[in-house]
């Protein structure tokens, strides 16, 4: 969709955080298919954990996602697409209950005005059944697509309960990357971090280094992920990794407490630490402007 640039900047705000996503800079960007009207943005929502219960953690466990959907719908300019980066549902050992939660989540997500909505699983959705229920509702757990000059790759590092991408998917990634030029703009979505953020808390992907090694020759690679329920930014050489907040409960900063537990609800600051983000892809820059929003849609 075309958007009025001034409107977009108003939406995103002058103070949007801009993260360098490559060493190549403007000069190395492939401009062949890009036109001025091709600036776009997408919205990332993550870790909605539909089915979670715990009043001390989130007394509005069934309302938070709905509020976020409403907030996204109220954005003055609607995104080109919306990406959910996993843990759509909270895990359950009961297959029927898992499907019920996935179905309910799907129903809420269907209320989004933007109809181009993409999904990927987290370990809570797919770790116990190797993604079988997820696939019934949302299709493939790893895939790629192109949008306005950017190549998007969705990697599944959760359906294998060993926190791995696995050799078969890595072969698929290798073949997919072969079709890209070294200066192509590439965005990778994962649930878990591809790098060793904090292995003590299982915040890593066991074979994530194999994926980053494959991505390393490409000059313009940015990874957006979830799993850790907080904003976090990291570089692996020129590859930039951005973790998103969740929409059910925040988690503490990596290694900041002896035991990883959800951060309790703060009645004085309800929904603190929860939210979603918009990501603007600019035509002439190999970097993305990230704006963080609260659950209710206030720009942070």
């Amino acid at each position, binding site marked *: 969709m075309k958007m009025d640039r001034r409107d977009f900047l108003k939406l995103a705000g002058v103070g949007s955080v801009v993260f360098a996503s490559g060493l190549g800079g403007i000069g190395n960007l492939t401009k062949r298919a890009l036109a001025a009207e091709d600036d776009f943005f997408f919205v990332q929502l993550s870790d909605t954990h539909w089915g979670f219960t715990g009043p001390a953690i989130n007394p509005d466990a069934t309302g938070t996602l709905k509020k976020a959907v409403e907030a996204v719908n109220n954005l003055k300019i609607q995104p080109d697409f919306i990406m959910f980066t996993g843990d759509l549902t909270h*895990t359950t050992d009961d297959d029927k209950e898992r499907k019920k939660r996935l179905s309910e989540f799907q129903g809420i997500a269907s209320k989004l005005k933007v109809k181009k909505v993409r999904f990927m699983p987290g370990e809570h959705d797919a770790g116990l059944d190797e993604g079988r229920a997820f696939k019934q509702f949302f299709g493939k757990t790893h895939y790629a697509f192109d949008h306005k000059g950017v190549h998007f790759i969705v990697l599944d590092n959760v359906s294998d309960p060993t926190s791995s991408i696995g050799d078969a998917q890595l072969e698929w990634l290798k073949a997919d990357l072969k079709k890209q030029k070294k200066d192509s703009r590439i965005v990778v979505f994962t649930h878990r971090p591809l790098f060793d953020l904090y292995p003590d808390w299982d915040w890593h992907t066991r074979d994530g280094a194999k994926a980053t090694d494959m991505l390393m020759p490409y000059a313009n690679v940015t990874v957006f992920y979830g799993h850790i329920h907080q904003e976090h930014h990291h570089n692996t050489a020129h590859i930039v990794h951005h973790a998103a907040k969740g929409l059910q409960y925040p988690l503490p900063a990596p290694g900041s407490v002896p035991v990883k537990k959800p951060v309790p609800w703060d009645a004085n600051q309800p929904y603190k630490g929860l939210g979603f983000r918009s990501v603007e892809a600019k035509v002439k820059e190999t970097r993305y402007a990230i704006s963080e929003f609260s659950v209710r849609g206030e720009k942070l």
Partner: protein
Amino acid sequence: MKSMKSGPLVCGAMAAFILISIGGYLIAAENEQVIQITAKRFEYSPKEITLKKGVPVVLEFTSLDRLHGFNCPGLGIRMDIRPGKVNRLRFVPNKVGTFPFHCDNFCGSGHEGMTGTITVTE
């Protein structure tokens, strides 16, 4: 003397130059300590283990239900704990301290609380 907090499931193969054969495998060597650990959703038993620096140890894991993991990044050791077999991990603790370990194969709603510690003393 080795210090252990690990209860009846822990046995120490303490005698020097003794080799023990279980299931056809030689599992103990000189001064090698053997510690049996069960894993089930969502706990290890024992979950607190004390070892001596420099003394070889074999951790023998048995899963009582499904695939679990054992990952102790501080000591640089991990293994899959597969059901239906004894999963043995040999190592020599090379530094003193208390090192958390956790299940790193997602096993359900209590997975994130499936943790324990290894304390290595001089």
